């Protein structure tokens, strides 16, 4: 996540050349040979990035301007036809709207829950062992793969499941709701599941951030007569701000890429209410075999991600 770690280590050229190496004799030749050494170490990575990133992105971009790709032998150039097709498809626009709701709501709640839990786990009022125990419980949701999380919540949110039992017993509901199959609740239900599965990463990072705040700052604030809320607003939040913003942007990026959770709980249904950009694209490609249309949609997703990533990088630079 963190470019600064790598960039920060600037090793002086002179120091790098001081050590005796077996290939020392000549003057200019060994120097060029030696200057190739770092590329040797980087080359497997460079090769993999070329094969796994550069070429595939070039491919998907070129697919998006063609027709009859992958399934046909002779694709033809189609200009922007695939893009106009996608951007005028009402299903795509619904997916765009759903994605927006899904990612902003998830990120907001992740942030609030993550911060609340991190602060409780950072309290000076409890012993280290108690806190460590709670910390393990709080991290639990993050340790399960999405397939497992989908199965757990399909069980919990079943019309006859335990969530409905509790809600009807305490009188919050008259009768059980089929949360994941009811068009009125499905998007909220998948967002809730995503909140459950994603908050621990926020919590861990914010906990580390909290532990990094100097106690002097709190003491100084206390001397100035600041109460708990003032200390939170004037010390904790400003100190955590860089982490909070970075995490929020990262979460927007990750959540916008969420596919498995929605695919395995609702499949984008009922009636498209949980269709997001990733499920829309997947269906275009692997259900309808419209690979060219899917590629146009995939490139649009990439562009949205790049805009978010741009904000992330800028945020990292500023801090």
């Amino acid at each position, binding site marked *: 996540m963190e470019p600064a770690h790598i960039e920060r280590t600037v090793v002086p050229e002179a120091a790098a050349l001081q050590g005796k190496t077996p290939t020392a004799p000549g003057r200019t030749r060994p120097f060029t040979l030696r200057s190739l050494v*770092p590329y040797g170490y980087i080359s497997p990575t460079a090769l993999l990035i070329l094969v796994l990133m550069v070429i595939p992105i070039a491919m998907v971009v070129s697919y998006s301007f063609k027709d009859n790709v992958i399934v046909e032998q002779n694709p033809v150039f189609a200009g922007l036809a695939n893009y106009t097709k996608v951007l005028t498809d009402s299903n795509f626009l619904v997916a765009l709207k759903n994605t927006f709701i899904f990612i902003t709501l998830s990120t907001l709640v992740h942030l609030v829950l993550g911060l609340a839990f991190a602060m409780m786990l950072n309290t000076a009022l409890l012993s280290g062992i108690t806190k460590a125990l709670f910390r393990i419980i709080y991290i639990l949701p993050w340790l399960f793969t999405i397939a497992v999380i989908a199965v757990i919540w399909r069980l919990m949110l079943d019309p006859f499941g335990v969530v409905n039992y509790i809600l009807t017993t305490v009188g919050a509901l008259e009768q059980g709701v089929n949360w994941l199959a009811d068009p009125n609740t499905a998007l909220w239900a998948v967002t809730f599941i995503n909140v459950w599965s994603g908050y621990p990463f926020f919590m*861990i990072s914010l906990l580390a951030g909290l532990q990094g705040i100097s106690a002097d700052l709190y003491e100084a604030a206390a001397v100035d007569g600041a109460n708990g809320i003032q200390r939170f607003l004037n010390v904790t939040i400003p100190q955590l701000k860089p982490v909070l913003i*970075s995490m929020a942007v990262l979460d927007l990026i990750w959540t916008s890429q969420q596919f498995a959770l929605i695919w395995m709980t609702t499949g984008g249904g009922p009636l498209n209410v949980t269709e997001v950009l990733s499920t829309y694209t997947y269906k275009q490609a692997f259900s309808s075999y419209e690979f060219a249309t899917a590629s146009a949609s995939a490139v649009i997703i990439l562009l949205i991600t790049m805009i978010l990533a741009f904000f992330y990088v800028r945020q990292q630079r500023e801090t």
Partner: protein
Amino acid sequence: MTTRMGRRRLGMKIGVIVGLCVGAAFAGLPVVWMLSTSFKTNGEVFGIPPRIITENFSFDAYRKILSDGSQMRFFLNSYIVALSVTALTLVVAILAAYGFSRYNFRFKRSINVIIVSVQAVPPITLVIPYFGLVVALGLYNTYPGLILTHMVFTLPYAIIMTTAYFNTLPRELDESVKVDGASGWTALWRILVPISVPGLIAVGIYTFMISWNEYLFALTLTRTNDMRTVPIGIQLLMGQHSYEWNQMMAMSILGSIPVLVLFLFFQRRFIGGLTAGAVKT
């Protein structure tokens, strides 16, 4: 005054404990329910009132999963893929991290930016060309196809974490070997890697977890059941016997055990390594 302060402190303490317990219920109850359901008979899953432990408490669901060859095949596949991804990622990341940490070279910054940005590329964007590539290369429905594509997720993180770890080690360590006439290569494998084992364990666990949990590529780049991994296996179980909830839960738990065990054993190291990569210091 002191008793008032003491009482207020006690009040806050109780407040925090109550808050922590509510949060723990939110986080933990679904997991407890999964565990509990895996020991029920299927008829008891939606019993009213819901109970954590029922009369027919049994290991039947586990027995069924463990004696089913096709389910076990999913586990074998997941282990083969995740362990290969981990080994390959570690080797490639160690080499790259050494280059980044100990050398200066042209394009260092640009390569760096590319590696960092790889993490942001949406998997759904990659899966379409991957499908085309993997079919063209004859890697469709094979282990190498999955292993290679999983590395796009694992490598950037592994390189960043390993470089950060190497950067914490003083350069004098490898210089001392180089003075004795050894090459950078020797310094890396004889000195740097052995003392980096704690950091590399964290990287390895994270890599294993990503690969073990990966869903989209496993779904699209494999076709037959003898190539499917655990996440797909769990999904298939949902389709096959739609409502054998106890078996689905047993399979989910068995599928989560490797990650849970790794995490519990290396918790401290792991969280330390993770936040070192994610949080600015």
